[in-house]
């Protein structure tokens, strides 16, 4: 019973990270119908920058801030340089380009900081059951999620972003700068993604550190329907707890396979995700 309790608490803080990275995917998918497979790599570069800044200045929080800013810039640059030229091309094109960026950035990280694991600090004390750090992770992610939802739902910026995503032509005639809104969406998403990277990485940082986290985040986003931020956050927490049980009772090696199994089962039963709306196709 004690185990069960510990695993649940551990799963909640892990799930918060999946929810955050999943949220980054959903923001972009909503705006541009692109799944950003480079998201873990953008977060990776930000986290490495945080490492370097923290190492140089001794301040964790300065590194933290630099990482978020750098992530935003990277997201904006990706949209402008790589995604915008592809906006009239097939879905496959954007998938492949973001994958290419993933490979490049992971390789660049390895070239600059080496493939060896580097020690990366926790924000707060990580020892004990539901440590100060776990609490911090969960609170930060919930706060960010709330902020994103408020921005989308209740601010003029959010209204414009939604308009640009759902009806670009109409939005444009009404004076919304659609391109700018898409870029803003990528920047916002990459900032959230970088935050997830900072929270997910400790204790060790290496170029492939986020591969697994990305798979779980994608699973969380797919559970949520790729379109639904609230569903993704719920999906992240449910997945975190569920995978924590798998890890505790069946071994940590089984976690990715379990995520795959969940993904396949859920999508087979509900092809648009647990919380997604089914897309009507006319024949």
């Amino acid at each position: 019973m004690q185990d069960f309790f510990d695993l649940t608490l551990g799963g909640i803080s892990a799930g918060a990270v999946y929810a955050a990275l999943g949220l980054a995917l959903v923001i972009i998918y909503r705006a541009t119908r692109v799944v950003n497979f480079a998201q873990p790599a953008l977060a990776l570069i930000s986290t490495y920058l945080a490492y370097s800044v923290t190492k140089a200045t001794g301040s964790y929080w300065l590194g933290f801030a630099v990482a978020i800013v750098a992530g935003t810039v990277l997201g904006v640059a990706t949209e402008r340089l790589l995604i915008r030229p592809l906006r009239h091309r097939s879905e496959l094109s954007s998938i492949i380009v973001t994958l290419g960026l993933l490979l490049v950035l992971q390789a660049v990280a390895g070239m600059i900081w080496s493939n060896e694991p580097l020690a990366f600090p926790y924000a707060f004390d990580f020892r004990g059951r539901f440590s100060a750090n776990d609490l911090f992770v969960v609170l930060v992610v919930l706060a960010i999620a709330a902020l994103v939802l408020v921005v989308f739902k209740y601010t003029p910026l959010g209204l414009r972003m939604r308009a640009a995503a759902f009806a670009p032509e109409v939005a444009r005639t009404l004076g919304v700068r659609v391109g700018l809104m898409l870029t803003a969406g990528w920047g916002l998403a990459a900032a959230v993604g970088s935050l997830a990277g900072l929270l997910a990485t400790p204790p060790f940082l290496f170029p492939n550190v986020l591969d697994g986290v990305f798979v779980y985040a994608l699973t969380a986003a797919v559970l949520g329907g790729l379109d639904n931020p609230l569903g993704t956050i719920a999906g992240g927490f449910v997945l975190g707890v569920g995978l924590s049980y798998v890890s505790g009772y069946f071994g940590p090696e089984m976690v990715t396979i379990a995520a795959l199994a969940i993904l396949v089962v859920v999508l087979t039963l509900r092809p648009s995700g647990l919380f997604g709306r089914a897309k009507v196709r006319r024949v």
Partner: protein
Amino acid sequence: MTVRTKPAEATATPVKQRRSLPPLLVHALAALGAFAVVVLLTLVTDEFTNLRLATIGYYLIAVAGLTLLTGLTGQVSLGHGAFMFIGAYTVALLVRRVPSFPLWADLLLASAAGGLAGLLAGAAAARLRGPYLAGATLALAVGLPALTRKFPDFLGGSNGLSFTVHSRPAGIGVPELRWQTWIVWLSVLVALVLVANIVRGRLGRDFRAVRDDEVAAALSGIAVGRTKILAFLVSAVCGGLAGGLQAFLLGTAAPGSFTPALSLSLLAAVVLGGLGSLWGALWGAVALVYFQAWSEDLADVLHLNTDVANNLPLAVYGVILIVVVLAFPRGIQGGFHRLRALLRKPAEKKENHENH
């Protein structure tokens, strides 16, 4: 697997072909020619190049399978390394546990094991599209090699399984590596003949119809789900064979060889070669091997440190993916097509195009 073939005028591919010869025969003859070329190449080159040739061979069949899946049927797989993983471990386990099995049986079983996994993956994939499918297959690539750590006694943990296959019959005076290269290419060419026939045949047309418009394909009587599963099956068989050949060649199967990066570089090879063309698979496979080799040479020449050198190939594959999609969506094979079209045109038109 039965291969239905049609006369040349009924196939959708614009490739010209002698009407009197059935495609199977043409492909078989081409394969024989290719095998002769490979044997010649192995005879005039050193051991080192032999190994590279063999490596191109098993990448070729893996990339060809992925071309059929992604290029022809439009299903993105980011997990094709997983089928190679299955093939490699099948061969490793068979050689270690049942040494009495002949090599060809091991390779057949490796292909079958890959195919079985492909059938399962395909059954799930038939309901998924685009990013959903890409995500699920990526999970496959990340998750499957971790199983080796779950069953360290059976699968050898992170170190994997090593073994030796003495495939060369006694009394044949050919160096082992050269002989292995022949075996690899013989298997690959046999498989390629089958794949080429599928691509040219009725099933190939079904694949393209499903890629271009699922609804229209369904309306014209194609079982869309079954066609997608068949594409996964064929390409996974190719992946299993490729993995089996790799294990045979290297004498080892280890999880470190089947990272997600492998799956992504296979996709890079497909895109670089030209989506949807089996010739493109050849250029892609050659590129996979030689970009690796050149980046090693370059690192030597420029005295790059190991961090840069180790990551150079991946960076190159990434840049290729981006540049090809942005600037040359038809890949190398598309470039050849354009070149051929240009050569047929009058000279003044050619100049115009070159300025383009």
